[in-house]
């Protein structure tokens, strides 16, 4: 496992280990097929000349059938993993956080005690005045919304992220949580996952979004549940004086 798992960053999500195992399986199979094919190539080139092969079944169809079965089983296994994370929505008890990508920063919004996100309007966007998301102050639900530039999540609890983009297509990616999803303007896209290990992780933008694409990074801090609760409480105290 060493050669391939070495470059992979340590995984900190619930669905990550299965993904990693499947990825490593695929990589080893690819390496094995690569070696086998090159072995046959070299063997064929180095061996003495003989009359040409004729058996279409043994040389073409049988290996194709084997490869077909191999690829089909890999696909089925992969589809099961994909379905597990993507086909269904988040559970109703998941923590809701909204992510907004703008050129060139990520903003995160927590709905606050009323568990409802306030309305945002693009006309009200004023990052210089502390309102990067355009929160509408006339909406009663906006008052307790907490906007941060750092994503803080509790360990062990499912999180439902709602991805927005204000201007261009951005790619929201947390490699160490094996998470990636584009944020498309005009669409609200949901992804759900569970972070398992407390720590600090990198959030990257992975869809070319302009000049500052390379520095559109953020930090994910995963805290033990009690520390997360106190962090959230301290933030809300600031929000509702």
């Amino acid at each position, binding site marked *: 496992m060493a050669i391939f798992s070495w470059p992979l960053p340590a995984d900190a999500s619930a669905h990550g280990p299965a993904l990693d195992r*499947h*990825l490593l399986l695929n990589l080893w199979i690819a390496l094995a097929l690569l070696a086998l094919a090159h072995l046959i190539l070299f063997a064929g080139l180095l061996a*003495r000349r003989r009359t040409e092969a*004729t058996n279409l079944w043994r040389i073409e169809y049988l290996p194709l059938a084997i490869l077909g079965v191999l*690829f089909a089983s890999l696909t089925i296994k992969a589809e099961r993993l*994909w379905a597990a994370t993507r086909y269904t929505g988040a559970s109703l008890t998941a923590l809701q956080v909204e992510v907004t990508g703008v050129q060139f920063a990520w903003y995160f919004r927590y709905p606050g005690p009323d568990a409802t996100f306030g309305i945002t309007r693009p006309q009200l966007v004023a990052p210089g005045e502390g309102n990067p998301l355009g929160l509408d102050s006339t909406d009663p639900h906006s008052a307790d919304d907490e906007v941060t530039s750092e994503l803080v999540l509790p360990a062990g609890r499912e999180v439902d992220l709602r991805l927005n983009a*204000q201007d*261009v297509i951005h790619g929201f990616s947390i490699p160490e949580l094996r998470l990636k999803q584009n944020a498309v303007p005009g669409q609200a896209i949901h992804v759900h996952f569970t972070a398992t290990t407390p720590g600090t992780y990198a959030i990257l933008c992975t869809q070319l979004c*302009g000049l500052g694409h390379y520095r559109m990074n953020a930090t994910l801090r995963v805290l033990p549940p009690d520390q997360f609760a106190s962090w959230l409480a301290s933030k809300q105290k600031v929000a509702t004086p």
Partner: protein
Amino acid sequence: MNPIQSKDFFKSYIATTDHRTIGIQYLILALISVAIGTLLSLLMRIHLVWPGWRLPLHGPILPEDYLALVTIHGTIMLFFVLTTAPQAGFGNLILPAQIGARSMAFPMLNAASFWLTAVALLTLLSSTFVPGGAAISGWTAYPPLSAVPSAGPGQALGMDLWLISIALFAIASTASSINTLTTIIRNRCDGMTWERLPLTVWGWFTAALLSIIAFSVLLAAILLLLCDRHAGTSFFLPSGDLVNNVLHRGGDGSPLLWLHLFWFFGHPEVYIAILPGLGLTSMLLANFSHRRVFAYRTMIATTLLIGFLGILLWGHHMFVAGLNPFASSAFSVSTMAIALPASAKVLSWLATIWRSKPTYKTAMLFSLGFVSLFITGGLTGPILAQPILDEYLHNTFFVAAHFHLIMAMAGVFALYAATYYWFPLLTASRNHPGRLMSEPLGRLHFWCTLVGAYAVFLPMHLTGLAGEPRHYAQLTGVPGPGGALSPTGVLLSRTIPLNQFITYAAIFLATAQLLFLFNLCRSLRKGPFATSNPWKATTLEWHPAMNPFTPTTASDTPAVTVHRAPCHYQSTEPGREMGDSFFPQWAPDTVVQSTIENTADTKPE
């Protein structure tokens, strides 16, 4: 030799409708493009590992410069090298000869296509010099980044010029494909049935069919994008889109629509780039092994199948782009399916050279290199075809390694093989026979390029697995809190050592190509003259009547008739020396022919 008058020069080299000259014009355009594209990629690699390096006469490479390099590199390589050289360049040069035709179906359209392509290239290159610079949205030009002129530097005039350039290219390419298709269908000589067509022709045929279907969709998408940019429409812009403090108040469009239209073109495009190479590899392996292509009819079927399936799997570029997850699964299945005809081709190549003790001419070496690189690059395809894995690997350097191994390396290896192989036909003229390129230089070129290719792109898989994203103008110097490296900085810094190695390897790889240029230029003037069929090939382009040097007038040109499929070499008993007997397609039937044993394709030839 009489000095060429300027009027003759213009007529025979510029305003010509002769397909061979037009083919060479395309190849020269592609050569210039590949030199520019390689230089740009070198600048990118150098900047990534030595960000402070100053480009002479320019200064340090700023993020907008880097992204402009990315955009122009991708565009120029994919369009002006990999779509022109195999299909239009070598196609024009060799296709009519391989099917026994005197010319392409529409010679004037052919010339017009070339000049339109040249104008497109000039338009693209000119975008570098306009205010704002070249576009920075990559060769994929996703809106709204590409739809709003204020979304970034170079997205105003630079982006418009990019769009116009590609639109012109699309028209030229479609016209050229119409020519190719009509030529193959209608201009074949007597006896050249569909089953006797060389696999290169099948490659050109399928690629032309794909071109006809795909480029128009790109043209439509570009038209819609230009409307969004200049006519106030909202095909790709959602209402409420706020870019650089400018609010879009118009209708509600969808950026995802561009992705669908673009990738509906974009995926067949990469098959257009590789299909001629696939056919050429089969033919060259057979030629130098003195063997038939194993499972010829299956190879024809797989070529067509790859073409057909290639239209159905564009969504695998969009697994995490906001597609319905069920759609992702469907595209995943069709993408996996195309692995099978591709594997069939690999098996056929391996079977063709199996125990054949081939002659290792440079063209053969490059064909073998194609096989190796195609296998390596192709095997990461099924990995990327699974959405759950693509979730991690999308837009990382793993993807870049995958497509560079197949397109940039295998595709270019096919072009090298074609150049070394068809050099005698390229250089033959009325006054002198064709020349050969130097074999020792060619072998050195091959080994350096093969080693360089693997040295550059194998480690790239590892940096991609480590999470290194594409299109990052800098891997270092991104500040974190308190001056320390942010988690992103830590993640990226882990990839720096490998990236340094890749850059050194890239410099080596690029330098090795100078060997090819030197060999090319020297052999054009001083290469040894070739006989009329130096590789003992069986395909029709080596017929004496197809060679411009053989002096024939129209009246005594013998009718070219084809009597058999290509690659009929006399089989040998084990232990005997490889016989010299081979039966070109044009040689008439003799009694000896009937002693050739039937291969798996048992229907009468």
